[in-house]
């Protein structure tokens, strides 16, 4: 009986463990850390949209001493949502390093800060290439692009419609209504090449404390201010950082919006559409590619050789699929290129595809020997970056692979043989002619 239980247990392990695999890259289990449980209800629309897409949300207080990201070296969650801008110290074993290690092992992260963002949240953001305004009281103020509102007069509620131009991140449906934002500004670290502004402030925005008088020029100005940013790490973990927690709230989702100076008044702000679409991207429901089945062989053969010879003709193919949220669909594009690379690309060819995900091309190995690589470096905005490298040596001709008799050498053959014949005749004459 015990054996049976063990057997059942062992057979069930793979089923229990199949939550996040390269085959199904969408996240499943998400840990949501909150400042207090009121956020759970005040931001319920956002959480509901996640739950309705099949995510399993685990709400915890950020200072709950029992929270843990991993147990026995296994991560318990596939993604983390930090809706706890004021937290100074996480409970349990979590700290900034643990969260960054979580990201570095390929998991996703959403960070929402606010006007009262703690040092801890700022530190995490900084490590991801996002620098929040160092002035603690400062928020984004825009006297030209504010949202027309009945109550607030300090122009800290901003209506922004300066989105990143990427269908992969924001979905193909255009976001008509501006997005309401109320929170702190951040800038992107210029040395970080991976971070992207998804929602920028207008050129008239600046970051300052609205309650105090402005004595010196604000450090963050205009469109260098980012309101919402995303980072796709090199291991394809995706991070969303927002300067405002309230933009996720039900109140912002439902309120109407009219941008100052714009005659159109939208009944519903763009927040819900914007944040839902971005979350789809962050949780790998969109823009996630995989490349499989890299093959190369000589023309007319099917097996992959261990070495090519110079001037061989070869065929190269790779299959690329995109995750649609439920299945792997063929990825169709006309800009995938392969390099035949040794210190610099010797061959650079655009791959043609058959609309079923298979990309292929054929080319001639250059007349240079060495250790080459088939390299596919595919970095497109919003998509998983594909970086495939397959090493293959290229050898020169063998001594018996050259042409045996070349016409240009016939005079030399003639010279050699006539010399031999002449010598023979001469010897015969010399020896026997007496």
């Amino acid at each position: 009986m015990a054996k049976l239980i063990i057997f059942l247990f062992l057979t069930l392990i793979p089923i229990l463990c199949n939550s996040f695999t390269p085959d199904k890259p969408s996240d499943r289990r998400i840990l949501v850390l909150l400042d207090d449980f009121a956020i759970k209800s005040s931001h319920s629309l956002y959480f509901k949209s996640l739950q309705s897409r099949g995510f399993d949300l685990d709400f915890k207080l950020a200072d709950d001493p029992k929270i843990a990201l991993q147990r026995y070296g296994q991560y318990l969650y596939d993604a983390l949502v930090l809706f706890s801008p004021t937290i100074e110290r996480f409970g349990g074993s979590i700290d900034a390093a643990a969260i960054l290690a979580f990201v570095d092992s390929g998991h996703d992260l959403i960070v929402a800060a606010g006007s009262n963002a703690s040092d801890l949240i700022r530190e995490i953001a900084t490590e991801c290439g996002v620098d929040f305004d160092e002035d603690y009281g400062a928020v984004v103020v825009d006297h030209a692009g504010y949202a027309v509102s009945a109550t607030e007069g300090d122009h800290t509620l901003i209506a922004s419609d300066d989105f990143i131009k990427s269908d992969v991140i924001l979905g193909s449906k255009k976001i008509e209504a501006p997005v309401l934002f109320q929170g702190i500004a951040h800038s992107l670290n210029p040395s970080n090449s991976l971070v992207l502004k998804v929602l920028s402030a207008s050129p008239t925005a600046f970051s300052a404390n609205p309650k105090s008088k402005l004595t010196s020029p604000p450090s963050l100005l205009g469109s260098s201010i980012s309101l919402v940013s995303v980072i796709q790490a090199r291991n394809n973990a995706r991070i969303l950082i927002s300067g405002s927690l309230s933009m996720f709230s039900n109140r912002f989702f439902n309120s109407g919006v009219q941008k100052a100076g714009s005659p159109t008044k939208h009944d519903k702000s763009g927040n819900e559409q914007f944040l839902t679409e971005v979350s789809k991207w962050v949780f790998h429901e969109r823009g996630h590619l995989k490349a499989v089945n890299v093959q190369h062989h000589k023309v007319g053969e099917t097996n992959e050789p261990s070495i090519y010879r110079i001037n061989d003709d070869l065929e190269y193919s790779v299959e690329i699929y995109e995750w649609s949220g439920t299945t792997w669909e063929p990825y169709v594009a006309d800009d995938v290129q392969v390099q035949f690379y040794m210190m610099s690309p010797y061959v650079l060819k655009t791959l043609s595809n058959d609309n079923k995900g298979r990309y292929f091309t054929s080319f001639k190995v250059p007349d240079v020997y060495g250790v080459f690589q088939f390299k596919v470096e595919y970095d497109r905005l919003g998509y998983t970056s594909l970086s495939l490298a397959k090493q293959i040596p290229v050898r020169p001709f063998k001594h018996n692979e050259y042409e045996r008799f070349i016409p240009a050498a016939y005079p030399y053959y003639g010279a050699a043989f006539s010399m031999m014949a002449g010598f023979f005749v001469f010897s015969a004459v010399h020896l026997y002619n007496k």
Partner: protein
Amino acid sequence: MAVTASPPSVTQDLLNSLPKTLKLKTKQQELLLRITTLGLIYILAFITRLFSVLRYESMIHEFDPYFNYRTTLYLTEHGFSEFWNWFDSDSWYPLGRIVGGTLYPGLMLTAAGLYKILHFLRFAVHIREVCVLTAPFFASNTTIVAYFFGKEIWDSGAGIVAAALIAICPGYISRSVAGSYDNEGVAIFALLLTFYLFVKAVNTGSLSWALASAFGYFYMVSAWGGYVFIINLVPLYVLVLLVTGRYSLRLYVAYNCMYVLGMLLAMQIRFVGFQHVQSGEHMASMGVFFLLQVFFFLDWVKHLLGDVKLFQAFLRITVTSAVGVGAVALGVGMASGYISPWTGRFYSLLDPTYAKDHIPIIASVSEHQPTAWSSFMFDFHILLFLFPAGLYFCFKRLTDATIFIVMYGLTSMYFAGVMVRLILVATPAVCLISAIAVSATVKNLTRVVRAKVQPVQGGSGKGTGASKGSSKGVIDNSQPFQKNGAMMLLFGAFYLLSRYAIHCTWVTSEAYSSPSIVLAARGAHGQRVIFDDYREAYFWLRQNTPPDAKVMSWWDYGYQITAMGNRTVIVDNNTWNNTHIATVGRAMSSYEDEAYDIMKSLDVDYVLVVFGGVTGYSSDDINKFLWMVRIGGGVFPVIKEPDYLVNGEYRVDKGAAPKMLNCLMYKLSYYRFGELTTEYGKPPGYDRARGVEIGNKDIKLEYLEEAFTTQNWIVRIYKVKPPKNRW
């Protein structure tokens, strides 16, 4: 039945006749003695080279032999055709190396042939044992060649002495101990064989000896790049004979046959190819070849004309036009690029300062350094004094053969002074000439000693020159104490020779039998301490890194990493691509972030450095570092040598240059060294190899991480980190 009956009588007969047959004539006795001596010398030459095997183990030594071993292994495993066309993708990543076309295959083919023969004879030996013992075996064979050579140029006595001298001469042993599986091991045999056969051909004027010498030359070409010495010495010798009026038909036959056939055969070696007709180094032999034809032609014309005056005029015209045509041909060839100019190595031989100024990579090799006087004494001992004496004897009895050995001796002595490694080439000549001195002296002395006892002895003596006989007669009658003096001198010679033998054995056991891959030192209590760090590190690489990992190190360790670690290297001891080596030198002398970009562009996964600060091992990378800077700076001017020096002084302590303290090589060598106390009573971070406290003890690595450090810190391996995940 008849068969069974007869044996008793036969044995009886035999027993009766045995004492009679054992009584040998003097000539037979002498032959027996000679053969026995030669046999003993043959064995001695072999066993004196086995110290390293007894002290350590049967292993391949040093650096280059590991490449030779690896290729030999490949040859035995994959066969000749694969070996000949081998494209090695494990070295010089990502360029690769056409091994088959860039090596001298003679050594590998020899070892593989021996291996095949042994296996055919059912000796199930491993190829490594064959490789380890190839050099001693060929050293033994060299003694036999030396005997015949000595016999050819002087007499059989000189031959035996030459064989004995060369068997234990440290200059030769340094390159032919067991385990020193390098080209020179067989090349010296081939060199001496070629010379011997050529001299024999000149002496006899026989086509067959010339043919044999052409094949000897072919073997030499296949074995070592030093064949250039032959192809220049032999024409020089011919030229000298022509100038001194010793031209003969024998010389004509010997040189023409040897040159033409030798050249054709040498072209079969892929690495040499068309160099015989295209490279400046080989042009002298071709010029002499044409000159000989002119000489022959002139001789013929002289014979036809008979008129001296007419011939003089003809001679002038012919010689002028021949020299003119030759010069024009050479000039056109040089200008059109068909004839390549002399290589840097050749230049640096003729002008010892050339490499230092122009080609740092040649100057940096330790065995290319100019020879110190002490190493002449160390390697030749009494031969250094016997050499001039031998020259004296040679000049006293000038023949074609002695002229050859004199020229060989003088030119090779010059080259030995230019480069340390060329002492090896000079050794056979020095041994032969010294042997002439020893043999001639001892022979004269013994004749004096024996003359009083047996006044009439001239007839039974071995074939000696007439001059000796007459001198003996003079000495005989002049001095009464001649005999005692001769006895004294004989004892003196015996003493000197025995000192020589003792010195040679001592040098062999102390200096030339260490494998250099395993280091030995004396511990505090006098016991032997073995540092086996190299093999430890290479084994670690083999076991713990991905099979396609690329290891960057200074080129010295390239062959060993590929052979023992079985991993791809960026550069190795075959220094064919200066730019690639300079790139590695640049990475080593840059700051870590700059080096990281270079390493990424070369797909480097691991970096290996050799560090002697803990053990006091002085030939480590920090001491070689200035060469890296120089070679790197030669191609990339951003690297400047003065940046690493303080007032022209190279230091690693607190006063070192800031760039020095923060370059990659410094960081990798001294990473975490500041925490270590190496010597009692010294501060932590005390570098024992350089005897200073290091200047940068708090080293942080950003782009690399320590992967492995061997027991005595001699080899340190670092892993190149992947790019940062979020940046």
